[in-house]
């Protein structure tokens, strides 16, 4: 009971304190707001770049060309062996007849050339279109498929895919690094702002100590105050992220420049981003207050 009374008092007092020291609170809130907006932009960019990267990665396919004269038993055998490999996400068989039909349907020129070919003399090869679970394993999987009997050749955009993978890897690392660096910088920036505001309340802390408040008694209201500052400071960034991202998504119809670059669907993305923003706001607010008040707790 006593614990809850003390907790209740702390929450009430810290809430009051935010408004009683409003000019100082405003400095901390503005600092949280500005940095969270930057963090929010970084998160939106990072996730969209990563989403774009993984969309492309998902589209990369190993085209497995089978021997021209392969029998249906041998095709089944190849299928079994592909199926038994690691890192296979999906595979699809396309017979030479189907490929010929598709090609003829797609162009008159093809149609004129290919219409008289019978199955035996057609140079078209039946294929297995294989997708892998992990793009980094694509060359390993392709090599294994190449060694299967009756497989004529494999193609998956060698060289280009490896380059793409390494570029995406770099982008991913840079963006994650940026977000982490931003969060750390924010935490220290906010901590310093709160430190200045708390410095002006040294007297309050001194009085608390004189009337017999323990270090915990003194720290807790300030930490709650940091929590409130964090929550208040994240209101504008969350609103901007939510409405801004929905507006952006609608304006570009969910894609930028080409249908390949799809934006992430706003829902539930904006909920997660808002959640992350408020958590960062609270964490840096509390950390900042705790770090700032600690300095003034000498006897």
């Amino acid at each position: 009971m006593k614990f809850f009374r003390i907790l209740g008092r702390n929450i009430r007092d810290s809430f009051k304190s935010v408004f009683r020291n409003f000019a100082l609170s405003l400095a901390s809130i503005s600092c949280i707001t500005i940095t969270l907006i930057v963090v929010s932009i970084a998160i939106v960019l990072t996730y969209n770049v990563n989403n774009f990267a993984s969309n492309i990665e998902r589209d990369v396919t190993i085209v497995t060309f089978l021997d021209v004269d392969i029998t249906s038993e041998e095709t089944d055998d190849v299928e079994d062996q592909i199926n038994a490999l690691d890192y296979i996400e999906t595979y699809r068989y396309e017979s030479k007849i189907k490929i010929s039909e598709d090609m003829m349907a797609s162009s008159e020129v093809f149609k004129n050339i290919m219409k008289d070919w019978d199955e035996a003399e057609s140079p078209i090869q039946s294929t297995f279109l294989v997708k892998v679970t992990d793009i980094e394993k694509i060359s390993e999987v392709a090599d294994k498929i190449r060694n299967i009997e009756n497989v004529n050749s494999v193609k998956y955009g060698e060289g280009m895919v490896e380059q793409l993978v390494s570029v995406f890897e770099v982008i991913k690392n840079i963006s994650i690094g940026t977000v982490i660096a931003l969060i750390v910088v924010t935490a220290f920036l906010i901590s310093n702002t709160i430190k200045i505001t708390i410095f002006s309340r040294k007297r309050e802390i001194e009085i608390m100590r004189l009337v017999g408040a323990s270090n915990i008694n003194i720290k807790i209201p300030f930490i709650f105050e940091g929590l409130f500052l964090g929550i208040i400071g994240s209101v504008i960034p969350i609103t901007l992220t939510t409405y801004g991202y929905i507006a952006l998504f609608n304006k570009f119809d969910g894609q930028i420049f080409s249908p390949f670059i799809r934006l992430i669907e706003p829902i539930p993305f904006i909920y997660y981003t808002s959640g992350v923003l408020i958590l960062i706001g609270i964490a840096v607010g509390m950390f900042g207050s705790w770090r700032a008040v600690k300095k003034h707790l000498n006897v």
Partner: protein
Amino acid sequence: MRNVKKSYKNGVTALYDLNLKIEKGEFIFVIGSTGCGKSTLIKMLYRQEKPTSGNIEIGGLDVTKIRNGKVYKLRRKIGVVFQDFKLLNKSNVYENVAFALEIFGLPKSEIHSKVMKVLDLVGLKNKARQYPTELSGGEQQRVAIARAIVNGPKILICDEPTGNLDQTTSMEIMKVLEEINKLGTTIIMVTHDTGIVKKLKKRVILLDAGRVLKDYPEGEYAHEVL
């Protein structure tokens, strides 16, 4: 206090080999010229400063052995009043006094009755909702006294509580302190105001250059011609 010595890092020694015994319920004045060690003595009582050597015992508790993190336990047993009042200007009179009780997690009704009782004792019951800046110096000091005694400390330490006040207001404050003393609280008061000291006829400790120059029993200082 036994053989208490206090030297600062800069080489200045504020107190030399101080021995002092104060009885329960006493009212004593500590006087002396500026720099004689009065403030250091008082700061050591509420453990703002630690003696370089010697022991200070308050109600059986050795103050010198308390760790920094546990000082609050001592402070809950003593009340301290300062020359500059040390009030929270953004809180009203009631909140300033209640503050000292709220940290203990007492129920609201108990806090209310205790706060109103001490505000009555210091004559500020009707000003509970006013803010310190709306009060006179004497009234602010009474709020500070109310806050210092609200949790029933056995000892009240006063560091020049009348230093910022005129003669009449100072006497009003002294009356309040005498009332509190009558209720059983030991009062140790540092002051420059020899007029007050003579009028009240209490025990007086005269400090000079960090040593007890004279310990006047009750009433004897009044005859002193300085």
